[in-house]
């Protein structure tokens, strides 16, 4: 079974530039997450999708971050304009749970996209 795919693996940009990250979850997984992991910290949820709908984006800095999952499969996370404090690893994860099933369990993570903002 193919895992969660992310690209690019690394990106270096200057502040005020824009960047986009792409994620393709495990086939059939309804739920997709974007986490931000700053060096020395645990991952922090930015946004959660259920199919193509947003379930939780309460911690997404909406003035500069946006994300979409138009067809309920792959997803793109964009930052525009980037700030120095956006330097982090952006982890995409997916899980197979469906509405109403209340399944608890593991998330399947991609290898992350490391962003450095200069």
């Amino acid at each position, binding site marked *: 079974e193919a895992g969660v795919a992310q690209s690019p693996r690394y990106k270096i940009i200057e502040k005020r530039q824009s960047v986009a990250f792409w994620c393709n979850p495990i086939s059939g997984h309804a739920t997709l997450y974007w986490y931000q992991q700053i060096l020395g910290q*645990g991952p922090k949820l930015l946004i959660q999708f*259920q199919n193509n709908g947003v*379930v939780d984006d309460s911690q997404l800095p909406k003035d500069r971050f946006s994300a979409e999952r138009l067809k309920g499969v792959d997803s793109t996370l964009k930052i525009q304009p980037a700030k120095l404090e956006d330097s982090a690893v952006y*982890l995409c994860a997916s*899980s197979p749970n469906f509405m109403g099933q209340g399944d*608890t369990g593991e*998330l399947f993570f991609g290898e992350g996209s490391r962003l450095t903002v200069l």
Partner: protein
Amino acid sequence: EDKVVQSPLSLVVHEGDTVTLNCSYEVTNFRSLLWYKQEKKAPTFLFMLTSSGIEKKSGRLSSILDKKELFSILNITATQTGDSAVYLCAVEPGGGEYGNKLVFGAGTILRVKS
């Protein structure tokens, strides 16, 4: 606000030692607690715990949950250099329609010296 605190932040041991990693939490409507191992890439799943007092075991790793005292421990016996990693504890709050919204601690950095 949901919170997960891990301790120690880091530790260095020698091969063969036994280590205990701690995770305490405050969360609304607890559903589960998960442990992940993170090397220089994606976090990989170790355990999911939902019930107090029931030990989960996988090889040299084991974990147990205390829902009364709101903590979990992860034990690693006979440590090997390959156990060097960041160990992340995460809690899944309940009450929502969709699960798996994990709240992570900052992690414990384990370094095993040969």
